[in-house]
């Protein structure tokens, strides 16, 4: 074989090796690209999940803090309240009857109506802009009306806004006492003292319950 023919053979050999290397590099780059893309996708998913978990974790402690003690008594209390309510209605009916006789009908109707209007306007105002003082006000109205279920509901709402404020706790404990749950009330007050430290009013109420 002539020198130049051998050279041509070598040329093609080198050319094919070159093409093979190019393809190899191209395939490697493509594989790396695909691998990085998949990894990224997984990473993004993992980050998303982690973010969601973190969000849940962030929310969880607040829930724990707010429902530290009140939740457990509440479950029993709601049932009790329903029972009591029916009894109370009967009692109030009995009590209110002589009142109705004593005072003129029109006057009572006006008072009830104006109270309802005030309460409704307070609830409406709270719904527009939730406020601690507003919630406490509403809870107090319900407490005065002996509507303990609603009192618990609104003292809880107030408690969610400012869990460290003792007023909602006091109202809640007083409601429990009214419902005959003095033991639970003491637990709630003790929980406040353990969580937020000493408070004169809480301690006073706790002493009065103990007495």
């Amino acid at each position, binding site marked *: 074989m*002539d*020198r*130049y023919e*051998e*050279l*041509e053979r*070598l*040329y093609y050999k080198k050319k094919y090796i070159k093409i093979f290397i190019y393809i190899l590099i191209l395939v490697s780059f493509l594989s790396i690209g695909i691998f990085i893309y998949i990894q990224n996708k997984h990473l993004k998913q993992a980050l998303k999940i982690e973010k969601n978990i973190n969000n849940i974790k962030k929310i969880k402690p607040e829930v724990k803090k707010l429902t530290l003690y009140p939740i457990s008594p509440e479950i029993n209390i709601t049932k009790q309240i329903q029972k009591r309510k029916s009894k109370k209605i009967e009692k109030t009916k009995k009590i209110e009857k002589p009142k109705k006789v004593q005072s003129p009908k029109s006057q009572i109707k006006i008072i009830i109506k104006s109270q309802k209007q005030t309460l409704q306007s307070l609830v409406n105002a709270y719904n527009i802009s939730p406020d601690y003082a507003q919630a406490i006000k509403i809870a107090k109205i319900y407490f005065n009306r002996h509507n303990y279920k609603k009192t618990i509901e609104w003292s809880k709402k107030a408690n969610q806004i400012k869990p460290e404020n003792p007023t909602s706790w006091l109202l809640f404990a007083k409601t429990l006492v009214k419902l005959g749950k003095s033991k639970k009330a003491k637990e709630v007050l003790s929980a406040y003292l353990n969580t937020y430290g000493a408070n004169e009013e809480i301690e006073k109420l706790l002493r009065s319950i103990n007495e």
Partner: protein
Amino acid sequence: MNFKDAKELFRDRIDINLYVPLSQKMEIDLTYAIVEKEKIILVFGEAGNGKSFLMKKIYQNLLEKDNDFKLYFISNPFEESEAIDELFILDNEEKHRVVFIDEAQTLTEEKIERLRMLADNQPYTIILATHEKEAKKIFAKKHFKTRINYFINLKPLKLDKIEIFISSKLIQNDFNNIASLFTKSNYKLIYKLTNGNLREINKLLYKTFDIIDYFKNKYPQKVSKNKIDNKYIEMANMDLKGLLDG
């Protein structure tokens, strides 16, 4: 298409008949400096950039013209040391002497110094052609630097000049049909493989034409009639690099 004859145009030798004027400015500048009787002129550049061709061409031009110069051309001072010594023997001729010294890097320091003194004191113009590295050595000597009146730096050819060089050489020698076979892609490849060095271009084309001539005779169907396949240029480059011999 006769590639066998065409390859001879690119044989590595200095033949003024094959000179292609690539940089007329340098030619004019150098001729002007000689006519103006400058004392020392330094022509430098990488090996194979056309220093010898340029010197020979101007020497030839001056020989052909009727002028008052006495001309000398020393192509290898190492081998022609006697010719250098003759320069220092003064005669009564009043003509201005122009000495072309190619491969000046082979001059001894003593000879360089004597040439400097000669140019300083006698009606001499000395043109030294040297490699770039050697030129830097000569620059380094302060007393010599101040004596050099003219510097001509020959740089490698750019892509467009390569095209002119190859096509002019072929057309000037009636190989128009071969010149028309060259494509932009061929010129780009030649530029890539030779970095614009004239000697390398000549060697590469000589080999390429030799390969094409071989395949044209043995396997005519393999050789395109419309263009020069880059394959042959690559093969020539491989052969010049000795890849076939390991």
